[in-house]
């Protein structure tokens, strides 16, 4: 029963659109259907949007005297205590690569008109996307709630000159053996327990830094003294990092995450449609899977560059 009705619908469709001439849409430009071609051009325009964001990141980064180092900023991972630079984001990258691969499998099964195969691999892809979003939620939560980074403040800094840390009472901080706790130009530090005072000025209670045993420890003061540069010899408050870093990070990874989120929604809808047998009746090798596949691979492609500029360089 179902088979005959499907066949009937297909024949009617053929009859209604006996379109072989160029004016009836019979000639496909570039041998690709309208939907696929337009998906490519949408992705091209989206690539320009992302490129605009990433180039803005580059321009702002080049305009700053210092910029936080990714392996210092992105160093937390769930279930792991301590400093694990770039490990969690590598996992996230793998999740996206996996979901891209399951997407390729779904498209292949579509070409074979294998409904169950398509649905299985689509569900796998949806799961991959959802896991990625979960990871991003963890990453954002850690940065915002535990490390006090927002779009308006960035606690991650790097020293502009060589110098030493200074205690709250103005004495130079020293190790138990009496040697001064010093830092070099380019060394990383984090403003710890950030708050805003009555005038809405940023304040921190302490500084996180790497000691000579390469452990990350907290100094109960935010004072430093440079031993070189124009401020040499003067005790100053350690400056916060460039706040553009926080804004750029949340906007760009947020925009990418929004793409992942919409991708997951569309993948789920199309998986349900595929399961319902909608695309069987179209007899075009599950072209809808191919189109959403293009979008999904693009999301992975963008992540390659987000990963490059935020986490590797």
């Amino acid at each position: 029963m179902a088979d005959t009705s499907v066949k009937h619908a297909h024949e009617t469709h053929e009859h209604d659109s006996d379109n072989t001439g160029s004016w009836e849409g019979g000639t496909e430009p570039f041998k690709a259907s309208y939907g696929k071609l337009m998906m490519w051009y949408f992705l091209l325009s989206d690539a320009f949007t992302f490129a605009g964001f990433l180039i803005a990141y580059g321009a702002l980064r080049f305009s700053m005297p210092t910029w936080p180092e990714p392996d210092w900023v992105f160093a937390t991972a769930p279930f792991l205590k301590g400093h694990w630079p770039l490990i969690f984001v590598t996992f996230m990258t793998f999740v996206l690569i996996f979901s891209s691969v399951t997407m390729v499998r779904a498209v292949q099964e579509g070409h074979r008109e294998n409904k169950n195969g398509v649905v299985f691999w689509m569900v796998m892809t949806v799961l991959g996307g959802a896991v990625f979003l979960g990871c991003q939620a963890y990453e954002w939560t850690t940065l915002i709630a535990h490390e006090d980074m927002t779009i308006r403040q960035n606690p991650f800094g790097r020293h502009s000159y060589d110098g030493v840390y200074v205690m709250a009472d103005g004495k130079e901080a020293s190790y138990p053996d009496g040697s001064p706790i010093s830092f070099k130009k380019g060394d990383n530090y984090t403003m710890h327990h950030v708050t805003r005072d009555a005038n809405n000025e940023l304040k921190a209670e302490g500084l996180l830094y790497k000691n000579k045993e390469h452990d990350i420890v907290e100094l109960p003061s935010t004072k430093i003294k440079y031993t070189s540069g124009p401020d040499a010899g003067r005790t100053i408050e350690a400056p916060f990092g460039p706040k553009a870093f926080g804004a750029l990070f949340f906007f760009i990874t947020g925009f990418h995450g929004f793409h992942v989120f919409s991708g997951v929604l569309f993948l789920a809808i199309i998986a349900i449609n595929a399961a319902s047998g909608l695309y069987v009746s179209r007899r075009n090798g599950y072209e809808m899977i191919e189109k959403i596949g293009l979008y999904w691979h693009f999301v992975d492609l963008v992540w390659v560059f987000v990963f490059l500029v935020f986490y590797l360089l």
Partner: protein
Amino acid sequence: MSHQSYEEQKRFVVRGLILLGIITLVEVFVALLAKGHLGMEKWEGAMHYLYMLAMVSASLYKAYFIVFFFMHMAHEVRGLAMSVLMPTLLLVWAIIAFFQEGSSWGASREKIKEKNEQVVTPAAPKTGHLLVPSTTYKG
């Protein structure tokens, strides 16, 4: 992809997964090495530029692989591939121009600060002008 058998297609997917996975692992390994987490000194100067070049090249290769094989650009007709890929060349100029612009903002930072802090005493106004009574600017 229709010219490949189903088995070949499946093997291709596994190869793609391994390739992208290995490139990513190597990238992260080199990043940790270059930033001094694996017992080496931090890479500075020329080594740092070499590192950045390697990272950008690896990412461009991953992008090429995704577009040409996962998105099947290699199997589309030439006109489609060109109409999508050629416009991205505009980005080459965007990158050069905006990075130059950014460096220039960075270089003028001190000058802008200096100008902002500069105190300018305005020139004494003219008095006794024909149309402006001499008391206008006083008090």
